[in-house]
């Protein structure tokens, strides 16, 4: 694996029981880049993040992170590796019994022996980076969706990880919060020198901030390229996805018997 490559995914397959989710996916992610993984709902994007994080085991192939094959690691080694990863969950997944401050401080208290005064400074710095230093005393229930996502972002960078994974970071956000999160992902990746994987189906926002895009459809990589290449593609699936066309390779209608037979038009006309 070349030194600039942080993650290598090779012939990765995964299935839930008899249902195949990923079928021989291969991709590489370089250090310091923001990579988007796009695809329709249920296409296996989040599963791919779980495979990278080692919470599920592939049925074939492997994910190599920082030269370690993730699924071959024992529990302790896997937990050690996960300290280099941060993850932003779809709706933040903040700990509802802890304040904003304690949420961000959580990993520092769990994994380090830093004195409380230093933890305080670090937490306020992380919160300042996402613009929520003033909200450190609030509880998660008192935050808006966008604010919760920003706190979760601050929490995911608490230990300065090598990789940050974003699972649908733009879902359910108003336009301002959406732009804020998008810009934070880009700025934090550049400032911290991390690598970011953004799993999303928000095409317009993500194409503004990412360096490279993979499209997943039917468990395989349907297309890949830079945002410019993807925008100009003529591949029917990607074109439909990028331009939000309602019909195409992904049909508008759920498979059904012919419309006229369902309405029993022949019988009625006869």
């Amino acid at each position, binding site marked *: 694996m070349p030194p600039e490559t942080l993650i290598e995914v090779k012939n990765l397959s995964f299935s839930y029981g008899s249902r195949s989710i990923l079928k021989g996916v291969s991709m590489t992610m370089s250090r310091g880049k923001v990579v988007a993984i796009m695809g329709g709902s249920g296409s296996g994007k989040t599963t791919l993040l779980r495979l990278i994080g080692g919470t599920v085991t592939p049925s074939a192939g492997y994910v190599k992170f920082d030269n370690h094959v993730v699924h071959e690691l024992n529990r302790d080694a896997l937990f050690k590796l996960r300290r280099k990863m941060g*993850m932003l*969950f779809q*709706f933040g*997944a903040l*700990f509802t*019994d802890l304040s904003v401050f304690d949420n961000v401080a*959580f*990993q520092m208290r769990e*994994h380090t022996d830093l004195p409380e005064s230093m933890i305080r400074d670090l937490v306020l710095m992380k919160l300042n980076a996402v613009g929520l230093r003033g909200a450190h005393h609030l509880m998660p229930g008192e935050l808006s969706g966008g604010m919760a996502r920003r706190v979760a972002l601050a929490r995911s960078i608490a230990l300065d990880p090598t990789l940050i994974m974003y699972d649908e970071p733009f879902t359910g956000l108003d336009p301002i919060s959406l732009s804020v999160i998008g810009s934070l992902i880009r700025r934090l990746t550049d400032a911290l020198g991390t690598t970011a994987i953004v799993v999303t189906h928000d095409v317009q926002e993500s194409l503004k901030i990412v360096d490279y895009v993979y499209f997943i459809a039917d468990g395989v990589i349907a297309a890949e390229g830079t945002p410019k290449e993807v925008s100009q593609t003529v591949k029917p699936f990607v074109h439909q996805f990028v331009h939000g066309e309602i019909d195409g390779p992904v049909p508008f209608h759920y498979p059904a018997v012919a419309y006229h037979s369902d309405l029993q038009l022949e019988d009625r006309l006869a």
Partner: protein
Amino acid sequence: MLKRIISGIRGIGHRVIDSTWRLGYAARFFILVLLKSTTSLRRFGLVIRELYFTGVLSLIIILVSGLFVGMVLGLQGYETLQKFGSESAVGTLVALSLVRELGPVVAALLFASRAGSAITAEIGLMKATEQLSAMGMMAVDPVARVVAPRFWAGVISMPFLAAMFSVMGVFGGYLVTVVFIGVDEGLFWSQMQNNVDFRIDIANGVIKSFFFGIAVAAIAVFEGYDAPPTAEGVSGATTRTVVTSSLAILGLDFILTAFMFRGIS
């Protein structure tokens, strides 16, 4: 007809296999919680925090219920005993009923409804909102960090709550029989002192409540951790916690009573 019979038998078979599998899974989970309890013991602050939510916040319902149960016992006991001219034994009746049976059992039933259901709902919702997954991704084991402290808080708080229930019950019995009805105060307390044995009655009651605490806490954390991550799944798990805990408490009570007081001989 034959098809329906076979299908019925198959259905029963499936249910038996599922129940056995689930029981085995619960047993493995229980062992896992015990193995992961070192974090809770090392960082006892985590347990103390949960003790507040499970123990301290259950105090009101336990104390009020204990008071009323004791008052009813005093009233009923007095009504019955005076027919035989033994109303002075009402203190013994109230105390023995409470420390041997009603204290541990009713306190455990209330604890299952108040704290057990809350533990299940909290862990279930943490699972549904991906908080447990987030913890795992942060290299923090959710069984050690979330489940074990709640389990130990339940185990520790149960004997104290049962003891408080009994104390309040005795006080309730005293209020009704001595203060309101007028039974001699000296007789009330001296009869109780003479007939309630520390080892046989009080210690066995405490041991009972300790076992009930293990049962309720284990069921509550398991149901929460195993709950399907949906609103319906969490509500179902909460209901199962209360029902299963109640049955476990009553079943365990019979077994423990048989061992402790030689009920079967």
